[in-house]
């Protein structure tokens, strides 16, 4: 595996697949079809996009002008903050794959992940310039900030939904239906995880209290 890292072709393919995310942004239907069916996307590029998205979100906290984003630093937990993207992403990928694979979805688990990450590309591309520009405007001129901010999110959502339709080879209606169903699947998983962890913590607490009791008595 590490042998590949010494070859020049690996890097060329990586950069090419990273650049392909821009093509996906402007030509979502065509782009996301080729992403998996023509194998033009790579996991390395998907991970890179995800990493840059996370980085953008963290940098935004510090470098957006306080006119648009005030941060209560005492309450920021960077790991929870990162998890607030990664966790829904994981739920989405698992939930979407789990459902679509039962209903003739062509995409595999990894491909769902890859396409979702490619779909996040507009976020850093719009948010980073926005973050820089926010430091050079007044609050009256700041209307565009919220508008563009919303656009970046809507764009991402649009791309991700389109991507799912393409990689699973679904029609429009079926795609929308499974998007909604995936969201429900996410909720169900959250619910189960909550129950699971509260059970575990109660179980642990039970044995801890037994241990305490023993230590008091002996």
């Amino acid at each position, binding site marked *: 595996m590490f042998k590949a890292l010494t070859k020049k072709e690996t890097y060329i393919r990586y950069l090419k697949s990273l650049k392909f995310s821009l093509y996906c942004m402007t030509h979502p239907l065509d782009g996301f079809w080729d992403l998996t069916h023509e194998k033009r996307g790579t*996991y390395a590029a998907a991970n890179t996009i995800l990493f840059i998205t996370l980085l953008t979100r963290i940098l935004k906290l510090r470098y957006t002008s*306080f*006119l648009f984003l*005030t941060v*209560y630093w005492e*309450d920021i937990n960077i*790991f*929870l903050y*990162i*998890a*607030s993207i*990664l*966790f829904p*992403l*994981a*739920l989405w990928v*698992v939930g979407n794959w789990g459902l679509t694979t039962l209903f003739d979805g062509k995409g595999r*688990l*990894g491909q769902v992940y890859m396409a979702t990450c490619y779909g996040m590309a507009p976020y850093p591309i719009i948010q980073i310039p926005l973050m820089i520009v926010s430091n*050079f405007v*007044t*609050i*009256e001129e700041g209307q565009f900030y919220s508008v563009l901010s919303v656009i970046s999110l809507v764009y991402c959502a649009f791309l991700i939904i389109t991507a799912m339709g393409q990689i699973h080879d679904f029609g429009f209606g079926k795609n929308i239906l499974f998007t909604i169903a995936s969201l429900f699947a996410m909720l169900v998983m959250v619910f189960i*995880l*909550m129950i699971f*962890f*509260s059970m575990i*913590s109660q179980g642990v607490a039970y044995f801890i209290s037994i241990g305490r009791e023993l230590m008091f008595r002996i």
Partner: protein
Amino acid sequence: MKNKFLRFGLVAAGAIFASLAFPMTAQAGETNYTYVYDYWEDVQECPDTYTVARTFTYLDLGLEKNFKNPESLYVHGNKLYVCDTGNNRIVIFERVSTDEFKFIEEITSIKGSKINELNAPADIAIGDDGSIFIADRGNSRIVKVDSEYNYLMEFVKPVDSAIPDDLIFNPDKIVCDTAGRVYCSASGINKGLVKYEADGEFSGFVGATPVAYNITDYLWKKFASQEQRAQMESFVPTEYDNVFIDKDGFIYACAGGQKEEDLDAETVDAVRKLNMLGSDILVRNGDYPVYGDLYWSGGGGITGPSYFKDVTVFDNDIFVCLDQNRGRLFGYDDQGRLIYAFGGNGNMDGYFRKPVSLEHMDYDLLVLDQLDCAITLFIPTEVGNLIYTAMDQFDHGQYDEAQASWEQVKALNGNYSLAYIGIGRSLLRKEQYKDAMEYFEVKYDDENYSRAFAQYRKVWVKNNIGWIVAVILALFLIPLGIGKVKQIRHEIDIADIFKV
């Protein structure tokens, strides 16, 4: 791949577990005597802005008989009037030194009226010409007397279709303006303040509080039967608890008994500033509404929002509200930003059991406690005085001095937002935009920051216009030039004449 997903799962699981195991525990706890709220609505403890000079009981004031259910204080010049309602008298004192009041006289009756004995006088007001208005509640009238207490005229129950015939007129609080008009808040009348012209004629209601209701209640009422409707809570406006007329003739009225959900939704106001037309013109530019405490959780068995019982206004439009619920005083500046909050319930000096009335002499505050039958005199401390000085200096255009005063406040209280914003505003007026921006940014004052930044940017562009034009031109011309050169080279390469 599998490994990666496992890791995702672990992170996610960790996130859920962390949020279950360590719930957020940020709560406002017990507070210092004096405090303010910062931008984040966190309690910031402050050095005291006021200190108790003295607490006066009837003995300290040179009276023989204790107060009984006193309801109101009134200050005119350096004279203090105490409406000793339960004893049917009004007692007058003169302030002779910082913490000394001298008894002058007590009014129990007037001369030349049909009923001369005062019965439960609830409030007093003094006009510009020296005539005295007394809310003679037991006799259902407001009586106007001259400075020798000779009867001049009286204001009686207004005749209006909105007021039931069997309602007994109980004037509670009165103010009079420079023209001799009288505004009265009477119990049982919730249409606003009762307004009388100078000739004694009732001329309408002023400044009725808007009725707050929510849409679901409204719809229920639409479909409810007559009997059901009678059982429901009716949408009625709140009566004013107290009124104060400032030097410009604006009436500050507070209505303490607001419901939590209405205050929360900001559909009602605990304190209002009424103009001649009765509309509310109070400036509310603060980060949070003008309703006292932001946290209403029970401490010592006290719950619910602050109950503003009285309000008093300094000459520079700073107003102080008295919270009867927690025995606290809240000072707000002319922009509606909290300057300080202090006080509490208790028996110590500076704490109250049932404060009912608040008045001021210059910047000194007087609070009447109905249960203790005592008057507490607060005088500003060094910080308190500096804050007032700085605000006055800024209002008078002395920006250097205002900045220096705010710097001193900042040195005494580094957590005080208004000090930073005050310094910033002085710097802004002195056109030191860059420094002003820094001060505004520290305390998240976005509007002032934007104002300073707009100026700063303008100056910057003016100074660097040559560079800006050069850079923009370069951005266009260099790629253009490169393209041109490439094109010429290409043409040379394919030109026939160079072909051998």
